[in-house]
């Protein structure tokens, strides 16, 4: 009796854990593609999806290990290898894009991350990215300071901010109502998006939906 109870208890726990989000691998690849495009087209750095990246990296490492056992004559080997390369491209392009943004906006991003930590909200950068950002910011500062010694009198500095108002193409994954369009005049229009509709719109109007995953950039 006792044993059965324990077992069912364990099963219950398992089910609870599983309930979070169980995505199949094809769905995860789909999600990775969407996040890659989001990162590519959004002007600011987005919350990191290292969870998906690591999951996929695990998958391709195991697959590549298994591939070694496969004979070279097998035509399937080339196909497997090709898929691994496709996923690897996706991941590295995604990570590179993030690094590029971190390098461009390092100071602003670090400030934002600091305030996120203070507010107790989730940080956007992964641990590794944060370290990279700090080191990069530090060395660029030192560099400029040593250069500026030769040009006395210039003290004004200007932060490089991402242009959040840039126009982006997006595809909606859900029905969304009441998106405000800021057209630079005082009157603001409201629009509704239907599932599957594609629009060209200012990033500022939709950035929350991009982060929550209701829409994705294309």
């Amino acid at each position: 009796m006792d044993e059965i109870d324990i077992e069912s208890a364990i099963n219950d726990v398992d089910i609870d854990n599983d309930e979070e989000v169980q995505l199949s691998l094809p769905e995860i690849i789909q999600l990775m593609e969407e996040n890659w495009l989001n990162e590519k087209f959004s002007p600011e750095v987005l919350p990191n999806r290292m969870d998906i990246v690591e999951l996929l990296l695990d998958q391709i490492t195991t697959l590549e290990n298994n591939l070694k056992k496969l004979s070279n004559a097998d035509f399937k080997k080339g196909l497997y290898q090709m898929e691994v390369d496709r996923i690897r491209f996706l991941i590295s392009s995604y990570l590179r894009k993030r690094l590029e943004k971190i390098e461009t906006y390092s100071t602003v991003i670090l400030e934002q991350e600091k305030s996120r930590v203070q507010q107790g909200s989730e940080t956007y950068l992964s641990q590794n990215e944060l370290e990279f950002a700090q080191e990069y910011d530090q060395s660029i500062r030192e560099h400029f300071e040593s250069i500026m010694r030769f040009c006395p009198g210039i003290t004004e500095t200007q932060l490089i901010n991402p242009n959040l108002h840039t126009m982006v193409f997006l595809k909606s994954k859900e029905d969304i109502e009441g998106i405000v369009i800021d057209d630079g005049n005082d009157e603001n229009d409201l629009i509704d998006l239907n599932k599957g509709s594609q629009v060209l719109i200012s990033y500022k109007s939709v950035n929350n939906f991009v982060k929550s995953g209701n829409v994705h950039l294309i």
Partner: protein
Amino acid sequence: MDPDEVEFLGEKSLVEIVPTFNSAPIYFIGGDVGPFRASIPIRVPLWVAVNLKKQQQCKIIPPDWMDLEKLEFLKEEEKSNKSFVKMPSDHYMIEAKLILGCAADDIPKTDEIRTIIKDIWDIRMSKLRSSMDDMIKKSAMYAAVDNLTLMEINSIRPLLPHALDQIYRIKTNKKALSNRSQGTTSTLSESRTSFSSKT
């Protein structure tokens, strides 16, 4: 975005092939494909089809829409319609290019099909250019691009969003200036336009 990257995304769409070999399923991370039975049609991702075709392992069955009559009809529709017609495939240009490129021997009337798809593309691009012109003249800050495919969107990406960004800058600066000097706001005509008819 690089057109190759659009192609990368388009290569995931499924096409039907007739394999010339027998094989157990291939367990891809992105989903299982197979089992393959010689001369039994099967749906596989485009990149797999192209790879197998290059090794002479299969015949590619062209998608339904890759048919001269249907394309002729589509072209007429595209011509007579002011807005963009929905394309039979989200990646029609990529599918056409890859399939016609590697499996020309499997598809009847390849040259005619190639020409007509290019015609449709050209009609759509010229519509796109005039819509863009219209949008910039109205300095609109929103557009529905519902029936455009990714490749078409990508072709206007270097120009349109940047132009609109600049217009927005000019508008907001102008507003700030006039607020400062006279307290009047500039009103610049209509604020929205639509690339496709709303359904």
